């Protein structure tokens, strides 16, 4: 038995990352480093209005007073913020209005990633905003969506075309003072997606943003702003990959969601940033602030995340349940293999009456991976009859990895009911052998068992992506089981 365990652990080596290629494309980069001049340069490159530059500069000045957070259960090496390139853009003739304006190399890149930019080639019913490094390359189905009154475009375009909406909502859920990485992002963010669903509209297709880091030595700092007006519905999906490199690259994003009365937003993430190699060299530092505000009554925000990539993940998609009867959900699968570390979870802040939240977190650790769930359920004084149910499960593959849970519960209203359940399990040799005896290889057996374990969360993803995510889970654990 012990020998078998060793073999399992030794074979951790062979996990393969399938998106590690680099696109050799002419890229415009600004000099390394961070200063007011750099921020002014980014802002002028994007031709931004003064109010936005002001916002950036305020954020930057605030950031300079802050220290990197060290409370997470993560070993984060020192990051030299002056050694990062904060803006890198693949050179294009201009903004791509038609598909013919896009560099064929870029098209090829997204094809390889399974995200064709031609609408007719794409999964029916999914509109994509494709972001490479610091800029949005192309947003598909804009016209179709416009017919329904839905605005879906790059953040930069939103700033140009819908400045009032951006002004009203940007920073209203995640102010630049919120935390170190949110402040950094607010200072240097380059692009991202913007989405507005008007009153009473059920968005006719899935919206998605695909983030690709390509250039070296650069960080990616995008912002996503999603506003669901009264009685509207949207399902949104985010995917991400990066080339394999020895260096660590920083990705510090901000996502803000606002749901008005009776609106519902489903936000799904399949995060597959390059995780580093088997020795823990390289990989993306994924330090992301995601938060949704259920501003209206009966509104609902649901986060689903499948986190398989990144060297380090620091991320807590949260819901502020301000409207009465509003609902927040968090469904998460996080994998850490090799030397990956994740400290992820959620915050559910109950402010309104009869607010409800559900947390289902499934951690999977293999190799030397460290996986922490960190969650806060906070019920404020006025949140009568608030309900929360949390389920945090950990699955361990091997005995050199770790799983940790840090649930925080703060309840200020006696009518609230908060429940927390946690389990830790291992994949047993008996289970694997049972599968073997039916003709199923060890690798496939682990895939089956892991997918079974994560099924409750995977089921929350839009169908097309559930299949992808299932494959991804299996690939990211490849080689971790002998």
């Amino acid at each position, binding site marked *: 038995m012990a020998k078998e365990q060793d073999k399992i652990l030794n074979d951790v080596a062979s996990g393969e990352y399938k998106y590690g290629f680099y696109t050799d494309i002419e890229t415009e980069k600004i000099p390394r480093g961070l200063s007011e001049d750099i921020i002014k340069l980014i802002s002028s490159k994007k031709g931004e209005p003064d109010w936005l530059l002001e916002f950036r500069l305020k954020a930057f000045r605030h950031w300079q007073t802050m220290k990197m957070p060290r409370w997470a259960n993560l070993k984060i090496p020192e990051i030299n913020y002056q050694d990062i390139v904060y803006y890198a853009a693949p050179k294009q003739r201009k903004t791509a209005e038609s598909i013919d304006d896009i560099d064929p190399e870029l098209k090829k890149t997204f094809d390889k990633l399974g995200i064709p930019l031609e609408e007719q080639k794409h999964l029916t019913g999914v509109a994509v905003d494709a972001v490479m490094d610091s800029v949005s390359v192309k947003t598909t189905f804009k016209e179709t969506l416009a017919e329904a009154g839905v605005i879906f475009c790059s953040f930069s375009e939103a700033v140009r075309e819908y400045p009032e909406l951006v002004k009203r909502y940007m920073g209203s859920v995640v102010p630049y003072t919120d935390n170190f990485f949110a402040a950094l992002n607010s200072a240097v963010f380059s692009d991202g997606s913007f989405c507005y669903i008007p009153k009473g509209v059920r968005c006719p297709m899935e919206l998605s943003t695909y983030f690709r880091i390509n250039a070296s030595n650069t960080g990616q700092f995008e912002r996503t702003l999603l506003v669901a007006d009264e009685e509207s519905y949207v399902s949104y999906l985010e995917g991400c990959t990066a080339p394999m490199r020895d260096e660590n690259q920083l990705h510090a994003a901000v996502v803000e969601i606002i749901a008005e009365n009776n609106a519902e937003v489903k936000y799904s993430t399949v995060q597959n940033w390059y995780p580093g190699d088997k020795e823990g060299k390289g990989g993306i530092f994924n330090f992301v602030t995601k938060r949704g505000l259920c501003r209206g009554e009966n509104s609902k925000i649901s986060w689903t995340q499948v986190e398989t990539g990144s060297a380090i993940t620091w991320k807590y998609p949260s819901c502020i349940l301000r409207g009465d009867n509003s609902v927040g959900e968090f469904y998460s699968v996080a994998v850490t293999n090799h030397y990956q570390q994740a400290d992820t979870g959620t915050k559910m802040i109950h402010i309104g009456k009869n607010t409800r939240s559900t947390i289902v977190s499934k951690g999977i650790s293999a190799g030397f991976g460290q996986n922490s769930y960190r969650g806060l359920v906070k019920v404020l004084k006025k949140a009568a009859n608030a309900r929360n149910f949390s389920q945090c499960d950990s699955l361990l593959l091997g005995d050199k990895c770790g799983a940790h849970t840090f649930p925080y519960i703060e309840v200020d209203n006696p009518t609230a009911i908060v429940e927390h359940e946690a389990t830790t399990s291992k994949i047993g040799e008996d289970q694997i052998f049972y599968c*073997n*005896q*039916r003709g199923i290889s060890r690798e496939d057996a682990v895939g*089956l068992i892991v997918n079974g374990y994560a099924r409750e969360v995977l089921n929350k993803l839009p169908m097309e992506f559930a299949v992808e995510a299932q494959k991804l889970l299996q690939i990211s654990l490849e080689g971790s089981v002998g």
Partner: protein
Amino acid sequence: MLSIQNLKVAIEGKVILKSISLEVRPGEIHAIMGPNGSGKSTLAAVLAGRSYPQILEGTVTWFGRNLLEIPPEERSREGIFLGFQYPIEIPGVSMVNFMKTAVNEHRKYKGLEPLSASDFLKLMREKKELVEIDSKLANRSVNEGFSGGEKKKNEIFQMAMLEPKLAILDETDSGLDIDALRIVANGVNKLKRPDNSVIVITHYQRLLDYIIPDFVHVLYDGRIVKSAGKELALELEEKGYEWIKKEVNNQA
């Protein structure tokens, strides 16, 4: 098809099987009986390819191939099926998904295309009827929360799905009520073809009323100490193992 010669096996340094020799030819039904702890399940585990028993001596061949070198999943695909004495629960993995993966792996091994979803479900339906398993069980996770008897029936169901050349049924009759016993035995008989073989490990002659063995072996203290026709089972039922133990100990 299966030939075991002087097999000696230890678990964690302790010799469990001392010297086992057994020949199973196509079409034969062998019953293995013997007191608790005598090594019956260990023998089954070795044949199925578990890694914790250490093979100290002896050979096992399967159609002329060295069975001990074949990984367990390939043994399954080769047609060796083990009905577990204690079937394992796999939470979250549906029986449908589990069996579909298994059946398609077997098909791939034979160079066949995977079954379409509808053909697969049809096959499931047929086999469920054959072994009279409750349809609802097949929609649940593998063995999760199944009663003892349901787990055993589920083993026979899986056997029906995989149509093995050699089925090793380790106490599949234990924990079954009278009706279930009949159903399981009938299932085994219905699936029996002239060229496939069965090894039934059991404590009760009762099962052998339904599944008529060609040979009955008594495994005691790591050895097959007696082999005879089906009448041996009756004798054991009547007299217990004491007389055999005495016989063996006197010889020693």
